[in-house]
């Protein structure tokens, strides 16, 4: 056991380079999502008078003062990337939180409740695990439309099962531990034990899943948008930008820029997830409990 962790004080290793790099990347995109208007001068939706060359071609990066160039409609790519971060961050956070809330609820109910409840919930979860979630997402959006709410709920709906399965195992392990047995002996009720003595132990796992799922959600939404099932044009979305560039192989910046942003955000989220490893303050918190 490390001294810092045992004392509950955040270890200097919290500032590990990988975690810091991940944090900076994610923070940068979150900043773009929060105040895009401060960072990008141009309207991301409108074609600009000088956005295309005289021959009607989009401008490559650096040409005409456009740092990342323009797209085939003469819109500023930098502005669309910055504003597109809002969609990416929204997708990374909202359906992710909903999915993890569903997963946690099911894992706690099944893991602590046991019996027929556990059997039912876990068989249902496993049934979801074998479904082709991408196709289901396309079918749901095709049926109910492609509004932002529909997309957020669809992404949540298709991504709760895997964390639920893993969290369930952790709940069962913690539920058999001595401190839970002690709490039960002292007369603590099921709800109190679940919320006070089991749930906190799931925090490191939840954080890992949040970061993993966030990257997954961003890629999933980009895939849906690429196929025309995600957010709809002209909303700036990196997936939509990729979709729009799919027949533009001779204008590589149209593909590289949104693709690089997607990759960078996923890498950042992944690096940030390293914070829950053994030398992180989260690890120490579990031990303190």
């Amino acid at each position, binding site marked *: 056991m490390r001294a810092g962790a045992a004392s509950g004080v955040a270890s200097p290793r919290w500032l590990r380079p990988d975690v810091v790099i991940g944090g900076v990347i994610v923070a940068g995109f979150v900043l773009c999502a929060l105040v895009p208007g401060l960072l990008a001068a141009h309207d991301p939706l409108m*074609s600009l008078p000088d956005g295309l060359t005289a021959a*009607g071609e989009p401008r490559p990066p650096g040409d005409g003062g456009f740092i990342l160039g323009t797209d085939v409609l003469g819109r500023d790519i930098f502005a669309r990337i910055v504003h597109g971060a809002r969609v990416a961050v929204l997708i990374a956070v909202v359906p992710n939180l909903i999915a993890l809330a569903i997963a946690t609820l099911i894992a706690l109910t099944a893991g602590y409740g046991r019996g027929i409840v556990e059997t039912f919930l876990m068989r249902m979860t496993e049934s979801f695990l074998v479904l082709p979630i991408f196709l289901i997402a396309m079918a749901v959006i095709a049926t109910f439309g*492609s509004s932002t709410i529909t997309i957020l709920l669809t992404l949540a709906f298709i991504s709760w099962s895997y964390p639920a399965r893993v969290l369930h195992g952790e709940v069962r392990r913690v539920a058999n531990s001595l401190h839970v047995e002690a709490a039960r002996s002292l007369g603590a009720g099921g709800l109190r034990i679940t919320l006070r003595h089991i749930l906190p132990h799931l925090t490191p796992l939840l954080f890992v899943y949040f970061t993993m799922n966030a990257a997954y959600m961003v890629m999933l939404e980009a895939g849906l948008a690429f196929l025309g099932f995600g957010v709809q044009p*002209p909303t700036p979305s990196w997936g939509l930008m990729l979709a729009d560039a799919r*027949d533009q192989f001779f204008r590589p910046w149209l593909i590289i820029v949104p693709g690089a942003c997607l990759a960078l955000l996923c890498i950042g989220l992944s690096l940030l997830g390293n914070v829950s490893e053994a030398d992180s303050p989260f690890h120490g918190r579990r031990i303190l409990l």
Partner: protein
Amino acid sequence: MNKSQDQANLLGAITKAAAPTIGRRRFLAGAAALGLSGVLVVPTRSLAQTAIDPATIPGPAWQGGVKGGRGINVWQDTKVDFDPLLAYGRADYYNLSNFFRGLTFMSVGSEPQLDLAQSVDVSADGLTYTFTLRDGIKFHNGRPVVAEDFRWTIERANSPKQASWVQGFMAAVVGHDAFVSGKADTLAGVTAPDDRTLVIALATSDARLLSILGIPPFYVLPREEVERLGDAFSQSPVGTGPYKLLSFDSANSQMVSTRFEDYIYHDHLPYLDEVEIRWNVTEDIQYLQVSRGDADLSMSVPSAVVGKIEGDASYAGRFSAENSLDVQWWPLNVTKAPFDDVRVRQAINHAVNLSRTAVFGINPTGHLYPPSLLGFSDKAPIYAHDPDKARALLAEAGVAGLEMRIGVMTSATADNVRIAQLIAQDLETVGIKVVLEQRQEGALDLGAALRDEYDMWNMSWGMGLPDPSELATNHFGTGGTANLGGYSNPSLDAKAQAALGITDRAARAQSYAEIEAELLADAPFLFLGVRKLYSLRSKRLQNFVYDPAIWTYWDRYWLQDA
């Protein structure tokens, strides 16, 4: 019989049809209406099967080339069907003329010229067409072609079992309704009294007949091969065309055909020994292959490289941007307020700057008719881009804060999404808020249900028959099968019905021009234009000619280094 005798016979036949009432000028106009104008020289072939005068062969100019070699044609389609009734793609439909031919043939300008028919005699009332076939026509399997083959082919194209897209084209033929509905076993109006004579009897006059017979679905087929091969006929085409099948490799998306030694014009055409068709080749790869010389012809150059090609001298003479018959427009849901108000529809047309769509492969004419179509007129009152006028019209109609839901059918091309965004930008500038929604389906797949979901959507229609009647009947005629916006104008319906019976080509063009002008004024659509057809050739491919109805004439092309 020599050439002059044959010509005299045909002229006699036409004169006979026209003689009761008309003089020379009227006669010439009538001949033109039948597609038998001065450019149409009756193809002849002597009874002794000697060489045909090349000047009488239908189709575009072709003399002076080199024989031999293999031409390679690349296409984006993922599958091909070479049964003329099942060919819905580009790679198959626009190569049917390699394997099959019919009574008439579409030359450049979509003018029908007699092909396997040596002559046609039209009755004075315009209701009976008597075709005399050329002597010596053979199928690829060696069997001589007889008039019964044409009768059977036409009957097959109209049979209820086939339910073909061309079924409606021959609605004027006697007994059509009874045959199509299954009440009759044969199409009574089409008969073959002897091996070289085919008679088509019409219940009502239809000036389009020779054009209809010149489109690929009416190319003659050998019944025994179609019945023997069944579904496999699609991959084993047997016809009378200049090339016969050598190999069909569906796994590698490639087929090769070789010259047909008994082709009716075999003394002169085709030039190439072989034609290779490759499909499943994306636009980008087509561009690279043709640029490198690995293929000879691409008919779908990506719009993204058009600017580059046009600015590169090494492509000079090898690239064309032609008007196609692929009509582009955006129907409005005229059954719903405020789009039932013509002022709102006109405002939408004035609001959109069509010229911005040109970089996405559109010729933004602002018309419904393609420029090559009968009835197209430069004088038609199209809508100028005028946002102020659009705002004024909206105000006059009492419309403020309008929000439009626009469906974007993306099945054809990604350019539709880009064009939709340009339209949305322009509509927003006149105060109309727009919500776009992409759909993977085609508009016709969704049908009238589109009206439940959207106020406007994109339509694209590749005209199979180069005649405005197809648009008038299906797309803006009341209850037309593709009239998805619910537009109805009894005045236009009556004019379109009357135009069908006009045999004078100029009068017919005038009538259809008036119809389009009235349609433009009523603005049931946002009028856009036609898709441009970009073609790129290898350095060695010579004598490339194009027609929007036929696209390729592979019997006329030759290779410089053959």
